[in-house]
């Protein structure tokens, strides 16, 4: 009997020397190369939290990233770090009585914000509802509708994207503080600080956060090189991303890409602190609601009926 057990391959002994050799080689292969030409790997590894960096440190990071993107995409990227304008709190309006569900906004957003084409990431989801009594039952909505022409008789459409909550549950759950609310109300992600745990995705009641399951792939001619550090700069595999109200455009005074593309003018954008803004006019004069208001997230995204 004992002889039989000895012959079992599992009991084959490994010598101490052999084990140590293997362990040393294994460790060496996982180590970050240092001292070599790729010093930027160490710089990226040791980068401080975005909000703890001073202006010089941020500029160093931007230079490093621009170099990195240049090498990766063979394209000159311009990464801005524009701060929030004082006295602004961004709000968004969407006219449900006008939206025809044509999905122009979905793909204008993709063009502007460098989302991965494969695997596919969309920041805007357009939901189709049957008109009727239970009209806002999200469970009954259709996301994959594709008729020959829209709008269809008997249906209405509701695009959903990040609601830029004043009380964002996604920010609260982040274990690394890689996502936060900016002074102008935009919830942003630092892609260099995100560890990809996806707690925020689980916490978001609107399904507005998206995960890069693989290395994002975009055609070179479709890259948008005008970017913001907290917005549309190219992402990495394993990080979460979301709508930022086109922070690279809106902090320069422009409208978000989805507002500019909408063929029916259903999308409205402005400063909630400016009583003369379009969004304030909507809130004061139209029938307004916010999605899942009962969750106390205080969205700054207002759905309204203009008719």
């Amino acid at each position, binding site marked *: 009997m004992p002889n039989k057990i000895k012959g079992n391959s599992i009991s084959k002994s490994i010598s101490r020397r052999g084990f140590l050799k293997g362990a040393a080689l294994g460790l060496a292969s996982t180590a970050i190369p240092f001292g070599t030409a790729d010093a930027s790997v160490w710089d990226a590894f040791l980068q401080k939290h975005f909000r703890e960096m001073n202006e010089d440190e941020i500029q160093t990071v931007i230079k490093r990233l621009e170099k990195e993107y*240049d090498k990766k995409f*063979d*394209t*000159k990227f311009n990464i801005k770090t524009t701060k929030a304008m004082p006295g602004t709190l961004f709000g968004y*309006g969407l*006219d449900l009585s006008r939206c*025809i569900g*044509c*999905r*122009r906004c*979905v*793909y*204008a957003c*993709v*063009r502007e914000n460098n989302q991965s*084409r*494969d*695997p*596919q990431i*969309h920041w805007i*989801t357009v939901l189709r509802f049957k008109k009727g009594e239970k009209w806002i039952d999200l469970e009954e909505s259709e*996301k*994959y*509708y*594709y008729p*020959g*022409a*829209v*709008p269809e008789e008997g249906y209405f459409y509701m695009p959903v994207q990040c609601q830029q909550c004043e009380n964002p549950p996604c920010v609260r759950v982040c274990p690394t503080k890689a996502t936060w609310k900016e002074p102008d109300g935009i919830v942003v992600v630092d892609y260099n600080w995100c560890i990809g745990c996806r707690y925020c995705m689980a916490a978001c009641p609107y399904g507005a956060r998206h995960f890069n399951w693989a*290395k994002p*792939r*975009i*055609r*070179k*001619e*479709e*890259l948008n*090189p005008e970017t913001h550090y907290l917005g549309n700069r190219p992402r990495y595999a394993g990080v979460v991303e979301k709508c930022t109200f086109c922070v690279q455009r*809106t902090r320069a*005074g*422009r*409208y978000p890409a989805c*507002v500019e*593309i*909408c*063929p*029916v*003018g259903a999308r*409205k*954008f*402005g*400063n909630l602190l*400016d009583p003369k*803004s*379009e969004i304030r*006019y*909507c809130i004061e*004069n*139209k029938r307004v609601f916010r999605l899942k208001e009962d969750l106390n997230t205080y969205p700054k995204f207002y759905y309204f009926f*203009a008719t």
Partner: protein
Amino acid sequence: MKVLIQQKKLYAIFIAVLMLLTSVLLSMNAVAEDQDGIPEFFVPPPPFSEGIFPCSQCHADMEVNKKRRKLFYHTNIKFTHAAKQRWCLDCHNPDDRDVLRLASGKLVSFEESYYLCGQCHGTIFRDWKAGVHGKRTGMWNGKKEYRLCVQCHNPHQPRFKPLKPLPPPIKPADIKYSKPTDEIPENPLNTVFPLKTISRSKNAK
């Protein structure tokens, strides 16, 4: 004599005050018209069919015929905009076809056609001025680009034309593993709004 001069003086002052008042009133009126709820904006020119404007190039020598009839020119116009109640010259000015005419008799140019539409669609006109009805581009805190009503609504058939939607997102069941060498799908938006070809690659390397 003295009293008379004083009276004359008073009279002069009275006239001066009156003139001042009228001028103030007039200028106030002008300001009100200027503001009129319409902020400074830029509108692209009206979308005329090619070669159709100015209308006077044909209509100048024609006799005005207000009768409802089958037209032998302008056959591409299908009039479905409350056609029972109206006919061409209720909006187009009979005496000078290059302008439009409001119900009040006031003439407005084609560039200001929103006054004409606003006669009936008052609430929509109010929302449009506030920036809520219709598409707005430009700067949210600065210069905005408005559009005329007729840029989205054909004035003769005002209902918004249905559009072909862009494709839906990929269903989770249809996601396939792709190798890094596989072709990257194109943004479907390019079929509707072609990508502006900017030379982005850095040739000077």
